[in-house]
C-alpha cells in the first residue's frame, strides 16, 4: 500500500511539472527561462519537503498524518484551475522581467504542492522501517519506487496524457487520485513498531 503511494506521489510530481510548462506558456512563453524556473522551483519544494518531512516524521508518525500530508497537495491540485489563471495573469500584468516573472509564477503555483509531495518520502521511510537491520533495504526500495514513479509520470504525461486530455482536467485528476489514495490511510495504522529496542 505505502509502496504504491510512494510510486504515485513520485509520478504526480513529475507529471505536474510537465503540465506546469503548459500552464506557464500562454503568459511566459516556452523558453529556457520557463523550464529553468519550473525545474528549480520543483527541486526547491522537494528538498524543503525532504527536510521538513524528516523532522515531522520524528514526532509521533502515523499513517493518518501521512494521509493528511497527501490530501493537502491533492486539494491544491484539484482546485488548481481556479487560481492558476488569475495568478499567471496577475504576474503577467506586473511584468517583472523575462526571468523573474516565470520564476515567481512557478513559486506561487508549484512550490507548496511540491513541498508536501517531498515530505512523503522521508515520512514513509519512517513508517516502513521495521528493523534497523533492514532499514537500508527499505529506504533504498522507497527511493527507487519514488524515482521510478517519476519516470513513469514524465513519460506517460508528455508522451500520452497531454495528447488526449486537457491540462486542467489532468491536474484535477491527479488531485483526485492523491485524495482517493490517501483516504484509506486516515483509517489505517500501518506503522511498524521498532519501539527502539536498541
Amino acid at each position, binding site marked *: 500500500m505505502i509502496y504504491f503511494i510512494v510510486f504515485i506521489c513520485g509520478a504526480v510530481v513529475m507529471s505536474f511539472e510537465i503540465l506546469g510548462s*503548459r500552464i506557464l*506558456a*500562454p*503568459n*511566459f*512563453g*516556452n*523558453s*529556457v527561462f520557463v523550464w529553468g524556473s519550473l525545474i528549480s522551483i520543483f527541486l526547491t519544494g522537494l528538498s524543503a519537503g525532504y527536510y521538513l518531512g524528516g523532522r515531522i516524521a520524528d514526532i509521533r508518525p502515523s499513517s493518518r498524518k501521512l494521509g493528511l500530508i497527501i490530501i493537502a497537495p491533492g486539494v491544491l491540485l484539484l482546485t488548481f484551475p481556479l487560481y492558476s489563471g488569475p495568478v499567471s495573469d496577475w504576474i*503577467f500584468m506586473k*511584468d517583472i522581467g*523575462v526571468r523573474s516573472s516565470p520564476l515567481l509564477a512557478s513559486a506561487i503555483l508549484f512550490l507548496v504542492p511540491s513541498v508536501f509531495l517531498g515530505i512523503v518520502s522521508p515520512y514513509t521511510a519512517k513508517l516502513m522501517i521495521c528493523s534497523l537491520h533492514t532499514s537500508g533495504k527499505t529506504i533504498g526500495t522507497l527511493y527507487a519506487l519514488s524515482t521510478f514513479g517519476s519516470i513513469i509520470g514524465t513519460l506517460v504525461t508528455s508522451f500520452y496524457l*497531454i*495528447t*488526449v*486530455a*486537457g*491540462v*486542467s*482536467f489532468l491536474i484535477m485528476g491527479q488531485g483526485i487520485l492523491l485524495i482517493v489514495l490517501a483516504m484509506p490511510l486516515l483509517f489505517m495504522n500501518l506503522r511498524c513498531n521498532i519501539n527502539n529496542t536498541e
Partner: protein
Amino acid sequence: MLQKIYLIIFCFILFPFEGFALEPAEKLLMERNSLYQYIAVTEDTSKHKRYLRNNKKGLIQGVISLDAPGKLLFEYTQTSFVSLAFLQMNPTDVLFAGLGIGAMPGYMNRYYPEANIDVVEIDTDIIQVAKEYFYFKENKNLMVHPGDARQFIKRSKKKYDIIFLDAYQSDYIPFHLTTVEFLREVKNILEDNGVVVSNILSPNRNKFFDSMIMTYKKVFPYLYIFKGKTAGNFVFVVTKSSDLKDKDGIETIAKKIQSLKKFDFDLPETVSRFEHSMAYEWSGADILTDDFAPVNLYKYQDSEAK
C-alpha cells in the same frame, strides 16, 4: 570486451559526428547554439545561395541569393504578400511574429517604406545572424523587438493592418502560438479592416493542419487558403471583417497593386491559388486551446478527414 570498447572509441575518433551531409559545394559559414535553438548558416558556392538552418539535416529556415539578396525565394514568403490584396489601402502598421532571415520584413520595408513595421523575435542570436549574414537592416520604420510573440501581442497597445505569423521552432509552431486564446489576442490588435497571414507547414495533410483550420475558423469569420505548388506549404489568410471576399475581387486588386508596385514576383499569379476554407474544413478536428494543444503529435498524424 575491452577491445571492443576500444574499437568503438577508435571508430568515433576516425568518424567524428558528421555535422552535415552538405553538398560538396556547400560550406558552413557559422554554427551556434543559441538559448532557443541550433543555428547554422551555410553557403552554396555554385548556386550562390546562403541558407539558415535549425536542424542538422533537411529543413531550411531561410534562403537568399547572393546575387539578389532582396528577392523572396521561398514560395510561401511570396504568397504571404497576397494579404495586401485583402486590404482597402496601403498598410500603415505591420507586425511580423518571427524574424527568420528577415526576408519578408525587409521586402515589405523596401516596397512600403512609409509603413511602420514591427518584428518580434524571441532569439537575439537570430537577429544578429539575420543582420550579419542575410543583409537584414533595421531603420526607423522597421524595428525588431526581442521577445516572445505572444507576450508582445498581449501587451501591444498598437493595432495593425497586417499581422504575419511565422514563428517556428524548427519545423513546428510553439503550441502557445496556435491556440484559440492566442488568435483572440491577435484579433484584439488587428484593425477592423486588417488581415492575419499565417504560414502553415503541413507535409501530407496532417491532423495539425485540420486543427489549425478549425481553430482559425473559431476566431475569425472567414479563412482563405493558398496552397503552395510545393507540397505541404499553405498560407492562411483571415480577415476580421465579416464580408466574404471572392477570388475575382482579390485578383483585380492584386493586379492593381502589381502594376503600381512592380514586385519582382507575380502577385496576381499567386492570388490565383485562392481557395475558400470550406473544402478543407472538417468538423471532427480538435480546436486547439491553451488547455489542449498536442501540436507535436498532430504533426505526425495523418488527417482523418476524407
